């Protein structure tokens, strides 16, 4: 893997730090007018999401990380792994619970997800920003209350729970923003 000298470091670059793949999220060049120059970088560890800061003497380098982001189709869950497929090569990539994390609640078969691979294996699975899912269960006891502002929890086909307006019925399809977990609107089929 290539290595990057301090003057090549920039936001978004994927590098190794302490044995983990990291994304550079901030780069700052510091130098007293008549003194030694340093480059300060903030690195987000792609495995733990923790951000650490490192200071490199000018001319030092960081090893590049074999990391790539692919748009993969979610196929199915076998109880242990979530399986994703490349739409052109048909290569499949299994990801376990630790990798899929909270994204699991939004994954619907056939949907396209952004999957980050490190050394060829998934380390991050991001659900699409918006998903359309069927309501499988909602509280019927509050029926008849038509106030627009009132909401009730609803369970969706993937198991996620979202607050929805009271007028929604079971079986309806809604659009959800997975970044906030919020109901966006009703989808007419």
């Amino acid at each position, binding site marked *: 893997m290539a290595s990057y000298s301090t*003057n090549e470091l920039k936001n978004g670059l994927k590098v190794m730090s302490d044995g983990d793949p990291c994304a550079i999220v901030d*780069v*700052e*060049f*510091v*130098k*007293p*007018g*008549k*003194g*030694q*120059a*340093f*480059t*300060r970088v903030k690195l987000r560890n792609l495995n733990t999401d923790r951000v*650490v*800061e*490192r*200071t*490199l*003497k*000018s*001319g*030092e380098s960081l090893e590049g990380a074999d990391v790539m982001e692919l748009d993969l189709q979610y196929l199915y869950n076998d109880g242990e792994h979530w399986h994703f497929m490349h739409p052109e090569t048909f290569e499949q990539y299994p990801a376990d619970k630790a990798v899929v994390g909270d994204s699991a609640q939004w994954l619907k078969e056939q949907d396209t997800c952004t999957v980050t691979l490190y050394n060829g294996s998934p380390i991050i699975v991001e659900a699409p920003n918006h998903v359309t899912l069927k309501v499988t269960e909602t509280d019927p006891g509050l029926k008849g209350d038509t106030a627009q502002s009132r909401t009730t929890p609803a369970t969706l086909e993937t198991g996620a729970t979202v607050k929805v307006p009271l007028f929604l019925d079971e079986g309806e399809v809604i659009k959800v923003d997975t970044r906030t977990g919020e109901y966006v609107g009703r989808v007419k089929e």
Partner: protein
Amino acid sequence: MAAGWRPTADRPALAAAAAVRRRLRDFLEARGYLEVETPQLSAAANPDPAVEPFAVAGDAGPLWLATSPEFPMKRLLAAGSGPIYQLARAFRREEQGRRHNPEFTLLEWYAPGAAPAAFIDEAVALIVAGLGEEPAVTWLTYAEAFRQSCGVDPHRADAGELAEAARAAGLTVTGMEGESDPRPWRHLLQSCVVEPALAERGLVVVTDFPADDAALARLRAPGRAGEPAVAERFEIYLHGLELANGYHELTDPVEQRRRFEADNDRRRAAGQSPLPVDEHLLAALEAGLPDACGMAMGVDRLIMAATGATAIEGVLSFPLNRA
């Protein structure tokens, strides 16, 4: 990049920059400084290992773009110019970031016969005039600035103690393993700990630098036995941003040559090419440089402060990546 032809500074920032430059000129003109221009191309260069000049192919051999106008301005002083100033473009390789562009503007001015304290007071008044606001002013010695923010005595601490102070401040540093020279460790602390601690303090004048960071400043013998000699060098910080660097200028040609040679030795040791020293400057010192104080100020940074820009691009028409 389709938008790459566009300037990175907007019209109000360009106007604010013009106003800052006008106020700086007005201030110095009113005090009898003469505006001068000096060459930006020279067959000699400053061999300071911390400053890397751009080499240019000249008709009769290599030339260098000036990293500051200091040497020719001192030759003018030696020739009897009296107080002078210059708004000069300066060029330094490898310096690019939120506070650096490889091509930048320095205001450099010299006052023959001025005492350092009075010269610094005038420099503070100049910055206030250029800025158009009056921040609080604090004077600290280099030792006080270090003691307050990292708890070390920068004149006496060795590399190990400075490295420990960096660790205690939460710095994780790469490339300094086994570094036994305290200077780069001090520069690390200066940039990453001391400067950020000055961010809330308005204008801060830092004086009395360690002797090995004298650059082109005189040394002052210790006031008391057992105290370290210090360099008569001063820096001014504005909201934690290094704005200006000045000296009670070294006038001794023998000591100046010795420092140039030591600089070139350090360049060779670090794998950098040695640079041709400025024999014209040494001859001018030989002829007699009047006792003088001088200062160089980063004008782009002053404009950043005046406009609230957080990155130097915000005050430059075209930074190097669009030049």
